[in-house]
């Protein structure tokens, strides 16, 4: 971003008297705060007058909404912030706010944008009135996602501009520009941070919170807000005109970072790759030699930039995550090195060590060291005492040869236990169970089908699938793993919780009533941690499903790391392992509790008292009855 005159003055003051300057800055504006990238985005939204913020939790985006809620509570800012039932609903709530002239924002992870893609494509045509920012956090790696998809490509498909921050500091700065573009051109604007922006912390200067005095005001205009196909064509034409102008918008034009360089080569970077490249070019002594352009707005890429960069440079290296969005817009293929010709990896996160190699190759330097292969780390596992582990154990007992479809959440880790065979996307456990049922319908031997889905995921996308399964009379068992929270992303409330993002009291939706309302005739609730009773309950459901139709078991026990429901936790039962243990490792393989460790010297199982939560379930797991209550 270009430096403002005020910023220049401050810089001069700093150069002249650094220590005194810091002291004065501290007194005047307060010390910088350590902010997570997602907190910086939240801070930026509130500084710029965001009045409605919605989200559905998903790593790496979850902390945006929770930070908004925390900051607004602390500073009594009248913002509506809420977790919505899914990303599509979250999008539509925030979008209607901008139709009423307010500044609004919706945040989600990249695969959440798939869920919200229906309103996204349409909203691009209708445009925004108040500023509307769609924050879609990508996860190159992937660290905590199903795909490495690039939300910038979704912005391109929808035909809306997208900004690509390189750091928490820049993500916060971009909020004000995003709102400016959105209101100037009446268009939704995407902010696309990646995991390394969302989950980095930086020292950041907090500013004053913006003006919140705008009133909601909806101007009826059916040709726009309820456009029929004929008017859609007109809106599409207008959208193209907006994009033409945005592709020439000065404030988001690519920036040449090292002004004085001149070379036949140039490097184009965006997002966190820009942050890595700056540091590495300096370390390699290339900063004064090869020009580096940082793209702020990968789509639409500025037209003048495309023309000039192709005219001025013979060789261009483009580093971006995760798809070649900038690269595809540079027409002259003969000059470009990037993902399309394999110079930059098309998969995975682009780590700084890989960028170092690319830059050395590009500049004709000898790369000093190869990329090292380290030992793999530990795989994640369900916590000691997690109620899901008990549910999976019961499912394997009840339908040992079943097909186990599952879903997105902590319980995906049931695959360590051999109790999860499929994970596709949110809600698919139920529809895939239906698919397997139909696939095996004409076989003489039909397998039991047991689907598992979390409470939050069931609300998110499971309900339409369950209705379909009822209509088609699918013979399958659905176990709703109701741990009363959205656990994997940091224990956000669900529609059944009865409270909202800041703990405020809300209506609670009853899962049993919902299941029965979908038309399910067998619906029973049990506590998986009372495993002796729970196994027969799942067996009963499986039996029902074999003979009659869909059966639902609600496995209800609160998450151990949820803070809200401590009173519902069972009394702790402490266990020990007796000499009856023969070291068969049944408990290790079929239960995989982190608190049960195998003592290799004595060839027997042992309990780690630091990790054991005292759920007592393992007492019923050991086939030799060697685990006993202390």
């Amino acid at each position, binding site marked *: 971003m270009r430096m403002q005159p005020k910023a220049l003055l401050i810089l001069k003051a700093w150069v002249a008297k*650094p220590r005194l300057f810091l002291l004065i800055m501290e007194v005047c504006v307060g010390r910088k705060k350590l902010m997570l990238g997602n907190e910086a985005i939240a801070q930026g939204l509130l500084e710029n007058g965001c009045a409605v913020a919605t989200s559905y939790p998903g790593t790496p985006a979850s902390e945006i909404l929770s930070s908004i809620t925390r900051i607004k509570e602390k500073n009594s800012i009248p913002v509506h912030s809420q977790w919505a039932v899914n990303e599509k609903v979250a999008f539509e709530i925030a979008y209607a706010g901008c139709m009423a002239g307010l500044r609004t924002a919706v945040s989600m992870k990249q695969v959440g944008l798939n869920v919200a893609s229906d309103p996204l494509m349409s909203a691009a045509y209708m445009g925004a009135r108040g500023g509307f920012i769609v924050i879609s956090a990508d996860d190159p790696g992937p660290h905590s996602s199903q795909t490495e998809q690039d939300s910038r490509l979704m912005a391109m498909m929808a035909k809306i501009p997208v900004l690509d921050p390189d750091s928490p500091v820049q993500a916060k700065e971009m909020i004000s520009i995003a709102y400016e573009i959105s209101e100037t051109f009446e268009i939704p604007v995407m902010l696309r941070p990646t995991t390394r922006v969302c989950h980095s912390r930086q020292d950041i200067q907090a500013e004053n919170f913006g003006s919140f005095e705008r009133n909601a005001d909806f101007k009826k205009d059916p040709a726009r807000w309820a456009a029929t196909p004929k008017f859609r064509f007109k809106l599409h034409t207008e959208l193209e005109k907006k994009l033409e102008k945005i592709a020439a918008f000065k404030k988001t034009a690519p920036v040449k970072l090292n002004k004085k360089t001149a070379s036949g080569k140039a490097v184009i970077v965006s997002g966190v790759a820009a942050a890595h490249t700056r540091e590495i070019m300096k370390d390699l002594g290339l900063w004064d030699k090869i020009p580096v352009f940082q793209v702020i707005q990968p789509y639409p890429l500025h037209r003048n930039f495309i023309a000039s960069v192709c005219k001025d440079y013979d060789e261009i290296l483009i580093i971006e995550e995760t798809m070649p969005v900038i690269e595809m817009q540079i027409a002259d293929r003969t000059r470009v090195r990037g993902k399309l010709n394999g110079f930059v990896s098309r998969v995975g996160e682009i780590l700084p060590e890989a960028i170092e190699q690319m830059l050395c190759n590009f500049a004709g330097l000898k790369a000093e060291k190869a990329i090292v292969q380290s030992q793999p780390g530990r795989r994640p596992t369900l916590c000691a005492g997690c109620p899901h582990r008990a549910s999976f154990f019961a499912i394997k007992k009840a339908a040992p040869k079943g097909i186990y479809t599952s879903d997105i959440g902590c319980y*995906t880790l049931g695959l360590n236990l051999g109790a999860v065979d499929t994970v596709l996307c949110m809600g698919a456990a139920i529809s895939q169970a239906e698919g397997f049922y139909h696939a095996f319908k004409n076989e003489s031997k039909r397998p039991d089908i047991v689907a598992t889905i979390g409470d939050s995921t069931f609300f998110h996308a499971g309900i339409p699938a369950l209705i379909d399964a009822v209509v088609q009379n699918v013979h399958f068992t659905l176990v709703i793993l109701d741990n009363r929270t959205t656990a994997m992303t940091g224990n956000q409330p669900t529609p059944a919780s009865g409270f909202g993002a800041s703990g405020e009291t809300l209506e609670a939706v009853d899962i049993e009533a919902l299941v029965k309302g979908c038309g399910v005739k067998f619906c029973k609730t049990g506590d998986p941690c009372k495993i002796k009773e729970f196994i027969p309950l799942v067996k009963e459901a499986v039996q029902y499903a074999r003979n009659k139709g869909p059966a639902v078991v609600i496995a209800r026990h609160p998450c151990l790391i949820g803070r809200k429901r401590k009173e519902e936790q069972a009394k702790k039962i402490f266990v020990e392992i007796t000499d009856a243990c023969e070291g068969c490792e049944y408990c290790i393989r079929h239960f995989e509790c982190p608190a049960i460790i195998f003592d290799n010297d004595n060839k027997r199982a042992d309990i780690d008292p*630091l990790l054991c939560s005292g759920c007592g379930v393992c007492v019923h797991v050991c086939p030799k009855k060697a685990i006993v209550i202390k």
Partner: protein
Amino acid sequence: MKKSVNLQRSQIVISGVGGQGVLFITRLLAEAAIMKGCQVFTSETHGMAQRGGTVLSHLKVGDFSSPLIRPFQADGLIALKPENILQHGSFLKKGAWIFVNSGKKPDTGFDTYAVDADALSLKTGNPKSVNLVLLGFALKGEKVRQGENKGLFCTFEDIKSVLAGQLKGKKEMLDASVRALETGYAVSVK
């Protein structure tokens, strides 16, 4: 426009297993850096790995633009499990230090200091404070190491005052945390 006084440029890797409190001590160190007027950058592991998987933090103090540390660049490693040394030792540069939670001192090829933080935290009656015991121990670096790379960029007192700020109004937690930090700091380094 982001500039501040750079007392020392420092790159530190902190790793462990989800649930051990890697993020918390990363945060304390980052806050200490801000308190000393330094620029700071961290990169953290969130999400699925936090369920008992390997968790890794990068901490960079000083004038850096990238949130990640490259191989052979880190000044030191704080390892909450001995296995983390094999996983993340490749980040370390020549002459780097390692402070590890381990009953016996592992052979690493780096200047390594081990403390049984698991046992010490159990002894102090606070089994969840392994992270702070190890951090307390690591803060001894500047006392025992010679030369330019003396250990952490901040002192025991710095971390104590950060803790006091972070746990304001939670006296019991603060006292327990300071006790854990002191327990680690009191261990003699061999």
